[in-house]
């Protein structure tokens, strides 16, 4: 370590107990770390690794059921754990600032942005009203918000997600804290917005001379930002070191496994086979939503999907990439017949899908199936897995016992035990549930499988598993896959062709090599430029640990 000055924050042998009956005795055990001035320390780990708990402990925001049982958290020479509630409150907001994951819930919807920033000055400093206002406007400028005068009077709901997160950062910065703690501050944001926020963190590190503790699950973000990295697994620090060292030469098997699970950037993928017949053709699908005029608002029309055409060849994967609001979910819902398109038609092979009648929709669902994003919402919690799996087959007229037999076979394909049939969804982890969802979709032997952000909610190691499973199944049964995602790396990894959507419009379509190597549209270039960790290529792990070890 090159730093000689005393660290801003120093955690020594911290252990935090979990309440009895948890899956392990300690949420965090024996954790030590130092954060220096002008330094960004990233804590990386998968869900349940204790990384957020560590940041909450440093802020004195631990929920009551979690008790620190050993160690100390030294901030400016004082042990934070031994402070009274009042002393702690005094530290928070003035000497340390916290930035939360969800900017909407971190801001109070009843107050204007200006009010909420000024509140910090009111609580921690003696200032005149005019001075507070001047400082607030200066802060808004510093977090690069346009038109601070106007935003000063805006309410949180009038701002975009990225703007809200900047407000939260402004609040955290108000009293020039020496320590900033950011808990997944960009996870809820689109990739272009994320890039801007990450840039801001880098600038802040220099301009504010603060230490930054940055909690994330994303190795790309780490590569973009971190000076030093700390990897956590199940409450234990498994690896700690400089970013260079941990990212490019990880020593612990768990770190190696995590880095190995990061989708690789492929050099050249080669042109996909264009000789197979067309599996799916979408011709001029269009959808607008309109709200009727009310007493207070004029009528409004939103073009969710502008006329869209594309084709997918049999046995290939089409990646549809776009940020939130790009219309990709509406497009999928149109393809599934969950939403009726205003115009256009969908063709499977040479037959047109009838979307206007219930019987027609029912018929084409034998051909297209879907895996949803949220593994927790997609399975009815009140039905057993077996019952869930045979639903589709039974609805399409397969006898129950025969369907059960098939469900058993499919469970094997998605690598789950057979006794899963008699269990309930709550008894499975997110990754397992996603595999059950895949099995359920495959039960009706569809020609086309749509995966709507199917791996976005999963940890990176589980994500890798599920992606591999999807690809294996695609190859084994000649499935055509449409993969919707906001993650360019995942899209590049799994797709043959990529379709980029923005504001309801297809802005670019081409092979992976074309879209990534030679983007034509300015929006695609912007997306690619916004990808975090561009300077880092995940090293190839010669001997990767077993990928299933984590689950």
């Amino acid at each position, binding site marked *: 370590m090159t730093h000689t000055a005393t660290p801003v924050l120093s955690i020594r042998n911290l252990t935090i107990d979990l309440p009895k009956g948890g899956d392990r005795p300690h949420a965090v055990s024996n954790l030590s770390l130092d954060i220096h001035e002008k330094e960004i320390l990233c804590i990386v780990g998968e869900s349940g690794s204790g990384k957020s708990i560590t940041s909450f402990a440093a802020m004195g925001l631990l929920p009551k059921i979690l008790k620190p049982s050993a160690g100390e958290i030294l901030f400016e020479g004082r042990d934070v754990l031994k402070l009274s509630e009042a002393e702690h409150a005094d530290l928070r907001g003035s000497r340390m600032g916290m930035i*939360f994951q969800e900017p909407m819930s971190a801001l109070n919807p009843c107050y204007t942005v200006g009010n909420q920033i000024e509140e910090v000055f009111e609580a921690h400093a003696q200032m005149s009203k005019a001075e507070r206002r001047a400082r607030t406007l200066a802060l808004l400028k510093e977090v690069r918000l346009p038109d601070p005068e106007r935003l000063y009077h805006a309410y949180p709901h009038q701002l975009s997600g990225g703007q809200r997160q900047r407000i939260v950062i402004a609040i955290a910065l108000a009293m020039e804290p020496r320590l900033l703690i950011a808990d997944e501050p960009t996870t809820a944001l689109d990739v272009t917005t994320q890039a801007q926020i990450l840039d801001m963190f880098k600038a802040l590190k220099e301009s504010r001379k603060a230490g930054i503790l940055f909690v994330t699950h994303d190795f790309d973000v780490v590569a973009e930002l971190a000076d030093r990295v700390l990897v956590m697994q199940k409450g234990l620090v498994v690896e700690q070191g400089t970013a260079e060292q941990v990212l490019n030469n990880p020593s612990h098997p768990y770190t190696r496994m995590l880095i190995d699970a990061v989708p690789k950037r492929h050099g050249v993928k080669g042109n996909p086979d264009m000789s197979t017949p067309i599996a799916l053709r979408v011709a001029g699908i269009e959808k607008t939503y309109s709200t009727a005029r009310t007493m207070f608002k004029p009528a409004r029309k939103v073009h969710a999907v502008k006329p869209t055409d594309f084709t997918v060849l049999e046995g290939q994967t089409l990646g549809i990439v776009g940020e939130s609001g790009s219309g990709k979910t509406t497009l999928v819902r149109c393809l599934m017949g969950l939403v009726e398109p205003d115009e256009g038609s969908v063709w499977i092979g040479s037959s047109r899908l009838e979307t206007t009648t219930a019987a027609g929709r029912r018929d084409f669902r034998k051909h297209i199936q879907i895996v949803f*994003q949220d593994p927790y919402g997609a399975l009815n919690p009140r039905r057993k897995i077996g019952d869930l799996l045979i639903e589709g087959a039974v609805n399409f007229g397969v006898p129950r016992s025969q369907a059960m037999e098939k469900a058993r076979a499919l469970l094997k394909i998605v690598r789950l035990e057979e006794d899963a049939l008699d269990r309930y969804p709550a*008894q499975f982890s997110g990754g397992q549930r996603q595999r059950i969802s895949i099995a359920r979709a495959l039960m009706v032997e569809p020609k086309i499988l749509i995966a709507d952000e199917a791996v976005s909610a999963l940890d990176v190691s589980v994500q890798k598993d599920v992606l591999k499973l999807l690809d294996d199944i695609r190859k084994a049964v000649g499935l055509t896959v449409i993969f919707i995602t906001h993650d360019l790396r995942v899209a590049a990894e799994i797709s043959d062709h990529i379709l980029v959507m923005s504001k309801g419009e297809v802005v670019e379509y081409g092979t992976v090599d074309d879209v990534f190597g030679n983007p034509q549209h300015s929006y695609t270039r912007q997306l690619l430029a916004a990808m975090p960790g561009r300077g880092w290529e995940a090293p190839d792990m010669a001997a990767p640990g077993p990928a299933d070890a984590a689950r």
Partner: protein
Amino acid sequence: MSNTSLTISPGLPAASPAPSRVLARKALRHRGFMVGFLILLFVGLTALFAPLIAPYDPYKQDLLARLAPPVFLGGDWKHLLGTDALGRDYLSRLIYGARVSLLIGFTAALISAVIGTTLGVLGGYFGGKVDAVVMFIVSVRLALPATLVALAVVALFGGSLTVVVSVLGLLLWDRFAVVLRSATMQVRQMDYIAAAEVLGASLPRILFKDVLPNVMNQLIVIVTLEMAHAIILEAALSFLGLGVQPPTPSWGLMISEGKEMLLFESWLITIPGIALFILVFSINMLGDGIRDVTAPEGRN
């Protein structure tokens, strides 16, 4: 802070017990639930086996033994809870009265549940015009004062058990409709409904297999609340002389018949009053218990 609760719930262990098992264990540990459940069980069994338990025929008059005080007020063991103004054994009438109360409470709640659930689920699931119609019907119902309407109808058609049950059943469904409508709206948004649709499930199948089981908790809680409500309303109607007609033993009627003697033989009112209180209390405890046990924090 929602943030915190999200991040500290570590993934469920691979082999957690089945949800029904978890619920049963939570219910057994919930004191209010167990108290309510045991009392209700006791009252229910008493009502069911009334002919075996009751020491006397509840209708048999014994004018020589009128207004005998209960044991704890100096009466003898022949009539444990004394006798009423016509010399009928009070304990027997109380036991048979439990039958009336439970029957009315349960049947009225059941009728209400069917009407309210149908309206609420349909309105919540389809939304739009269907929902507008449902909400209009609910508004109309809410504009009617339940007690007054019940009084009027019973006055018109005469106070038999059937009339009282039907009137209460047709009047108490508003809460079912309102609560189940919003519960269904939430469930409607879930991906598993879309998934069922995509898997070709028919509408009735989705409603019965995917919607109803997931709004069942709310439904059961409302059933208990409305059951208590119906029992109280029946007692009120009977007290006003427009409910169950004498000589049928009903707790409300017993209170009504005892009111002339309030100053001298106050136990004539307090005994059925306490019975009514305990029954309604136990049903409410049970309802609260069910709500706590099935609260969403405890399940996925």
